[in-house]
């Protein structure tokens, strides 16, 4: 398998540089844009990378477990009604909102943001981030 400074899964791997790049992108493109907290997780519910604005104290492991399960459930519902997938997954709250975006078959990006970021801006930023992360495999 890979070199000492890489981390691995059974299905694919990323090296340390790629991980640092991902963290940088999450920070620059999302946290700096006003997003409260962002998680990159895999479909098994493991956390790949995480960034927040320093004012969040979420239970990120539970969040990741629930998000991956929720995403998988919605994805299965899509298949049952004959859709390939439902593209927008978004939950709106009084103060906090949560947005899910599939990066590729194994990764999911979860963003938590408040009133100071519009859904339009968020989707734009998330799309940019997703493209950059996908670029790691191209």
């Amino acid at each position, binding site marked *: *398998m890979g070199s*000492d*400074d*890489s*981390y*691995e*899964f*059974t*299905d694919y791997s990323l090296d*340390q540089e790629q*991980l*640092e790049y991902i963290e940088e992108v999450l920070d620059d493109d999302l946290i700096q844009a006003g997003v409260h907290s962002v998680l990159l997780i*895999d*479909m*098994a*519910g*493991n*956390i*790949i990378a995480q960034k927040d604005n320093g004012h969040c104290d979420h*239970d990120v*492991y*539970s969040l990741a*477990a*629930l998000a*991956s*399960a929720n995403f*998988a*459930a919605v994805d*299965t519902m899509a298949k049952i009604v004959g859709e390939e997938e439902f593209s927008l997954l978004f939950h709106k709250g009084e103060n906090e909102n949560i947005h899910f975006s599939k990066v590729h078959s194994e990764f999911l990006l979860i963003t938590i943001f408040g009133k100071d970021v519009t859904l339009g801006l968020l989707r734009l930023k998330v799309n940019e981030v997703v493209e950059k992360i996908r670029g790691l495999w191209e």
Partner: protein
Amino acid sequence: MAFVNMKTKEVQAKIVFYGPGRGGKTTNLEYVYSKFRERIKTDMVSIKTHGDRTLFFDFLPFDIGKIMGYDVKIQLYTVPGQVKYNATRKLVLKGVDGMVFVADSQRDKREKNHESLKNLQENLAAYKKSIFKIPLVLQYNKRDLKETPLMPIEMMEKDLNKQLKAPSFPASAITGENVVPTLKKIISLTMASLQNVMK
């Protein structure tokens, strides 16, 4: 599909408790949660019905400290045991690294144990995983019951473990007997299977 992060020196692995409905999977996690309360900083997450049956899963993150220089985080899950919930049960198996099969020792649950083990084998196969290869521990639960007739351990071994030859424990999730040994065993098997990536 454990996640080994060489940068933060952290390992996340997923262990799933499987078995027939009402066999004691949730009770196992509740015992672990109460026993290691000081180590588990978050609440146990349970998605259940009004009747207190597991609807999707229970989730308990369990920080077991350092192994080979890695901070090891074990994510414990249970599946819903009821037959009708197979779609969600299958989703919980995604990326599983180790399994505990919780069998119900009551004599009238013999067939249910069988069905559930067979269902596990099928669901693992859907992820291209073999029940013979994945780290697996069997638990013969509810040994404390006095009112209802229980199957002898030898019978359960023969029924469920003849080919699997997995480590097994008679246990009581209610009293806690052999709950922690079951957990320790599956953690050590799971960690052993990850050794080639944790160097």
